[in-house]
């Protein structure tokens, strides 16, 4: 494990302007995630963890402060460049799987590779390989609606891995699964972490911290070491 940071957050503040006043979702948040870590981000709803997740995922911009992904400062990037960063360096796993319903499992895994311009010849090969690693290569030609929740989440893990990202952002990946299937999914995440992938897991389930290497707590928009 190197000491290189996958993500570095420097005093990030996020303020939402609402009709009458302003709402401070994040206040002077600073944190670092090293390459190879499996970090759990915990906090109650309203703690600001979704906001932090969106900023780390390049879906949103901080009001002030900087985010460095792979030592690259994201603050000055255009929308198009942010989209490129999302495609190449971030792998999203959602609570509701969010597979494209009109595409089969294989095509869903291929999709991020299309967006970043991977040549046609290599991407299907890679997608199939990833599905095999997730143990669902036999379901490659099935539509998401034909798969179980656990299978869909495994397809989305494969999709998150497709462009070999710097970090995987998993937002309550077990939230829509029964505990047994959830455990299975966590085992897969644990497996890819052991293979060297950096993972940030957003959850409010303390039981999941047994898979992770470190836990960051978020409370009222501020980072703390304890719940």
């Amino acid at each position: 494990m190197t000491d290189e940071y996958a993500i570095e957050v420097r005093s990030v503040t996020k303020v939402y302007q609402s009709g009458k006043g302003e709402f401070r979702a994040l206040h002077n948040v600073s944190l670092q995630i090293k390459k190879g870590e499996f970090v759990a981000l915990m906090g109650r709803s309203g703690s600001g963890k979704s906001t932090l997740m969106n900023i780390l995922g390049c879906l949103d911009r901080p009001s002030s402060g900087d985010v460095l992904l792979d030592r690259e400062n994201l603050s000055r990037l255009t929308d198009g460049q942010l989209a490129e960063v999302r495609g190449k360096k971030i792998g999203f796993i959602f609570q509701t799987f969010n597979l494209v319903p009109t595409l089969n499992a294989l095509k869903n895994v291929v999709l991020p590779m299309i967006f970043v311009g991977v040549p046609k010849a290599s991407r299907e090969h890679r997608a199939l390989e990833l599905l095999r690693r997730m143990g669902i290569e036999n379901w490659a030609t099935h539509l998401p609606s034909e798969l179980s929740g656990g299978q869909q989440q495994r397809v989305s893990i494969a999709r998150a891995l497709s462009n070999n990202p710097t970090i995987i952002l998993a937002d309550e990946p077990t939230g829509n699964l029964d505990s047994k299937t959830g455990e299975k999914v966590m085992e897969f995440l644990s497996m890819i972490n052991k293979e060297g992938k950096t993972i940030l897991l957003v959850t409010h389930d303390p039981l999941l911290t047994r898979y992770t290497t470190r836990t960051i707590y978020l409370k009222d928009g501020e980072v703390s070491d304890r719940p």
Partner: protein
Amino acid sequence: MISDIFTMSLDALRSRKIRTFLTLLGVIIGTGSVIIVATAGNSLKVYIKEQWNFFDPTGIIIGVGTNSKPPQITFTEKVFTDADVKKIEGLPHIKGVAPVGIIAFKKVMMKEGFLKWQTKQGGTMWASTPELLKVLDLKLVSGEIFHEGKNEVLISEGTAQMFGKDTSLSVGDTLYVQQITGRILKAKIVGIYNSSSESNILSKLTVPAMIGPVDPYYTTFFGSNVGGLLRKVTAYTILYAAAVDTESVNKAQVEILEYLNGASDANKYKDEKTDFVFITQEYIQERIEQILSVVNMFITAIAVVSLIVGGIGIANIMFATVTERTREIGTMMAIGAKRRIIMQLFLYQSAIIGLLGGILGCIIGASGGAFIIQILGNYVQELGFSTSSAHLPLIYPMEWFVIATISGLLIGILAGVIPARKAAKMDPVVALRHE
């Protein structure tokens, strides 16, 4: 990359078959109806043009009426005299002239047996000279030409059937015609001329039902004191002239008009308010173009309206699709899709619907057009042109197929722009939260 996005658009359309089909239907009905109307219009155009070819390109019909647009011949004024005919015949670019006096009958009768008569109300005869057959390009199919001063007439093949097909008239039969004055005259049929062009729209002007000599049938005399002495003068309704060749029609027309407006008898006898009116092939073609331009306007109006309706249908469905797929759009943005790609994804879908709708509309319109032409064709036959060998042809307007297909594509793109922009401009955070 673009082909991948295109394939994804196709996948999206395929996964919502019923919705895609219904949206397509809007475009198909639009372009289909345009093709049907355009096919019918084009076929009629060709048909009408063929019909007009029966009119001798060197022919000039001269009458009195109003030189409005289009000019009208009144057919009631009788102004042209034999002297005028002689003078016009002598003009340099004129090959021949035939005067025509139009006679209306009260009835036409035929003796069928002892005190038994077949009667037909109404009827017209053109009193003229044998020259008329040449000018109108009519050929005798049986018998011979009439003689001036004798009760002899020529009838058309169509007229030969006037008492029904069972009692068709032939050379040697005798008709009795009752004039407006009540006088009944004998009319022996000496010849029958072809009426293949009777279905011609101009047949009233180019194929008379019956032709006879001026004496004894034409009795429009009136007093004239030209030269101090009261004389009886015969005057005709219209003149049929033929120019020496096609190129000289205009020159001939100028010459005739110059003469008529000068010291002609016609100029003295005609009502001051009326003009001399000429009908030539050129004039007829202008009339056709006029009629057809209305047809074209009609097609264009249908095209515009139906394409707008189809476009609104596409836009409507695309808005619904974009709203419905909001979360999917957010997901795609999260996994690296740029706004341009989201835009393309939806634009391709609407473009595909537009293009496919246009193409299918052309196919359905082509078969619908063939069907309409069949019905119209039967109708034209039933209108009583059964002697005509000409039937309504099916001529596809190729340019409209191209226009319809391209318009379908364009309308698809246009209708898709705003929904696709809406999709591309979404905030991924908000889109991902969408239920």
